[in-house]
Structure formats: C-alpha cells, structure tokens
C-alpha cells in the first residue's frame, strides 16, 4: 500500500510537470495582455479573436490538414498494394523489404529531411512547396502504414483472392470486393497513425517547405520576442481538440470493449 502511494505521488508529480506549460498556455489564452504576466491577468477573448483573424495561422492550419490527409491517404494506398505484393515474395526478399521500410523510421528525422533537400535540388525542383511536402509526408506515413496493414493481411485467408478469381471475378474486382473490405480496419488505423505523424512533423517540413507553412513551421517562424498573443490561443485550441477527440475515442473503445465482453 505504501508502495502504491509512492508510485502515485511520483506519477502525479511528473504529470503535473508535463502539463504545466500547456495548461498555463490555456489559462493565458484568456488574458488579453501582449506578454504573459502572472501579476497582470486581464480576462478577455482578444487572443482568440486575433487567432481567427490571423490569415497566416489559418492558412497554415488548412495546409496542415490538407497535407496530412492527402499524404496519409496516398501512403495507405501505396502500402496496401505493397503488402499484397510483399506477402507473395520469398522470405529473404520480404525481410529485405522490411528493412528498407524501416529506414525512414529509424533514421534521424533531420537526416531524412536534409537528404530530401539534396534530392529535390538534384532533380531541379524548386518553389514547389505543396508537391514536395506531400511527397515527403507520404514518406513519413508509409512505413507505419505497411507495419499496420501487413500483419492484418497475413492473418487473412490467403486463398480468398484466388477463390474470387476462380469464381470468375476479374483481379481488380476481386480485390475491391473481397480483399479491401477485410483490410478496411487496418487501413483506417494506418491512415490515422500516418495522419497524426504528419501533423506532428516539423523538421522535414521546415527543410522542404519553400514558403508553404504548416502549424509547426508557422509557430517556429514567429521568432520575435514577445511572440504574438494569438499563439497562446492556438496552443489552447489544439490542446482542446486533442482532448475532445481522445475522450470520444476512449468512450467509443470502452463501449466496444464492453460489447465484446458481453458477446463472449
């Protein structure tokens, strides 16, 4: 019992440390002062008004979601086909492919980012921020997509695809009506994981953006001190969104877990 209290207090202390900065940001997003001052808290919604009027931040929000959606979707498509091919390969080719797949995962992000700068420079692609970022973010999403989809495909009945074809379905039709529906949960999981990785990326975006800003780079770009007050509201907004989404996901998963327990 004593042990439990020690653990609990340590955990509580660390959680407090982890959340202190972000909660302070949330609190001060309701203070209208230019600089955050503990002794001068003026309640108001000025920071939030500024946030929604700040075109730079709003377009960065839009870009972030656009790039994350497109890249995660593209990665899931490439990964799904890749897994169907990988599963038919010989063992050694499979493990070699998995090593190739792991490289961007394991490599330091900054090295990936810089090597992409070299690639785009060598190809002579300049001032094509969206194009570069979608390609680069697809690279961020692809390894995790393969890692999520491949086990699911392995656990499926391998003969389904052949069976459908034996029954007269053309390959594409067999794929879209037999294989894809069964893979759907894994594909959605892969999409969401890729999406969140893309949202969080800063380094690769910063190196290759050609002036196209995402949330990360726009926050970084405000170097002057004090930073504009609407950044506080932006932090609070994203914290709130994440909180709401996680609570909903938890309730949904909890319900599903209970359901499956009842069914058992």
């Amino acid at each position: 019992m004593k042990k439990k209290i020690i653990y609990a207090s340590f955990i509580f202390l660390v959680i407090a440390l982890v959340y202190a900065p972000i909660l302070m940001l949330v609190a001060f997003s309701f203070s209208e002062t230019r600089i955050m001052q503990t002794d001068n808290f003026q309640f108001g919604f000025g920071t939030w008004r500024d946030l929604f009027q700040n075109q730079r931040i709003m377009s960065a929000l839009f870009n972030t979601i656009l790039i994350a959606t497109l890249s995660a979707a593209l990665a899931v498509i490439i990964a799904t086909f890749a897994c169907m091919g990988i599963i038919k390969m010989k063992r050694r080719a499979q493990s070699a492919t998995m090593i190739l797949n792991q490289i961007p995962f394991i490599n330091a992000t900054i090295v990936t980012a810089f090597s992409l700068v070299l690639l785009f420079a060598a190809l002579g692609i300049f001032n094509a921020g969206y194009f570069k970022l979608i390609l680069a973010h697809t690279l961020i999403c692809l390894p995790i997509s393969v890692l999520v989809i491949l086990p699911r495909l392995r656990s499926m009945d391998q003969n389904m695809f052949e069976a459908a074809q034996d029954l007269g379905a053309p390959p594409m039709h067999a794929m879209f009506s037999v294989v894809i529906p069964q893979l759907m949960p894994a594909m959605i999981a892969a999409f969401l994981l890729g999406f969140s990785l893309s949202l969080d990326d800063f380094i690769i975006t910063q190196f290759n953006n050609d002036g196209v800003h995402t949330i990360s780079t726009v926050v970084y770009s405000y170097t002057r001190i004090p930073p504009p007050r609407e950044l506080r509201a932006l932090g609070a907004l994203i914290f709130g969104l994440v909180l709401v989404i996680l609570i909903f996901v938890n309730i949904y998963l909890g319900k599903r877990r209970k359901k499956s327990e009842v069914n058992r």
Partner: protein
Amino acid sequence: MKKNKPKTRMSYKFLFALPFFIFMIMMVVVPLSLLFFYAFFEDGSFTFAHIQYFFTDSVSVRILFRSLGIALLATVIAILIAFPIALGLATAGFKRSHTILMLFIMPMWINLLLRSFALRELFGIIGVERGLFALVFAIVLDYLPLAIIPIYVVISGTSKKYIEASQDLGANPTQVFTKTILPLSVPGIMAAFLLVFTPAISTYFLVQYFGDNSTRMLGWLLFQLNINSEFGRASVISIALLIIVVLTILITNRLSKRGNKRGGLW
C-alpha cells in the same frame, strides 16, 4: 494441385509492390546515396576536403562530442523518470492505469512546436535561464512518452508473470527487482533509449529555443549549413548522424539480447 497453378497468376502479384519500391528508392535510397555523393564529390571530382574540414575546423568535432554528451544525459534522465512510472503503472495495481498512461501519451498529439513554445514561455515567467539545464529539461519533457511506452509494454506483458513467480518462490523485494524486473525490462529500456536518443541528438529547434552558445548540437550545425547551402559539409554531418544512429541500434540490440538471456537464466 498447387503445382499445376498457372504460372502467369503467380508472376504479376509482386508487381503490386512496385509503386512502393519505386517510391522508396526515389525517396530513401537515392537521397541517402546523394549524401555520400555530396560528401565526397565536389564539381564532379573526388575529394576528402569536406571530411577533412569536419575533423580540423575544431568546432565540428567539439559539437559532435557535446551532442553525444547532451543526448546521452537527456536520454538517461528520461529513462530514469520513465522506468518507475512504467513499473508503477504495470505492477502497482492502479484502477485507472490505462487512463494514466493515456495522460502521458496525450501531449504527443499536441504539436511538438507548440509544446516547446509553451515550455519556453513558462521558463520565461519563472525565470529559468537558457542553457544546458533548460535544454535537457525540454528534451526529457518532450520525449518522455517515447521512453514510457516501450518499458511499460515489456513490463506489463511477459514479465508480470515472472515477477509473481519470483515472489512466490520467496525472493525478497530487492531480489525481485535486481534479478527479475530489471533484466526482463532491458529490451524495453533499450527500445526507449533508441527512441529518445535519436531525436535528442538531432534536434535543432530545441537548441534554438532553450540552448545557448555552449549547447550547440549536431542537428543545429546541420540546420545552419543547410541554410547556407553548404551541402558538402552538411552531408558529412548527416553521415556522422547516420553512423551514430546505426551504432546505437547495434549496441542497444546487443544489450537487449544479453538482457533477455540473463532474464531467462535467473
């Protein structure tokens, strides 16, 4: 039956993976090869100049060792904090251990830059000076979830049974910890090490946010060189980072295998 399968049907299947291979070769293999090209070639002819510069300019090598030191320090501290948390969540029998774990993971979904920005503002208010302490604190706080998760997974998975078994067999708490928990969680600790050390050694915005002149790291140097379009020298730094990451993987793999063996033999 299987032998009679028409050959054409087998042969096109791997073609499904073709877009993946084209993409990965274009985006991974070619760019990494370009690093070596830019490091060793200048205007089409072979050169050691960039490598030589790295070892003789007196700044680069110092930054290399400093980066190793700072990243190592931050990673060790992160693991020292993460270990008791993971152990407590896995073994102390909290009612809502999943929710608590979720609380630790949640900040990872909040943009890293915004989190760092928030911490910088907090430091500004309470008056923490920029420098080594602030930088290490920031690295630990930002990457703590990456240290907690693998250790928690390992302890809450297989080793829980072993912990109970060793208690049943009469080991005292110290023995349970040193002979069972610690050796068995080595793979988790090593995974945590890799997950924290790699971003820690290559970070540059944390150095810009929290560091001072004495805490410049390899990632920062690479970032500056890239801005100045010094691709040759930047490639050398990238290769140094590649080598460090590969060595870290080899060492952590080795150690986690050894830990496994000892865990199995206790």
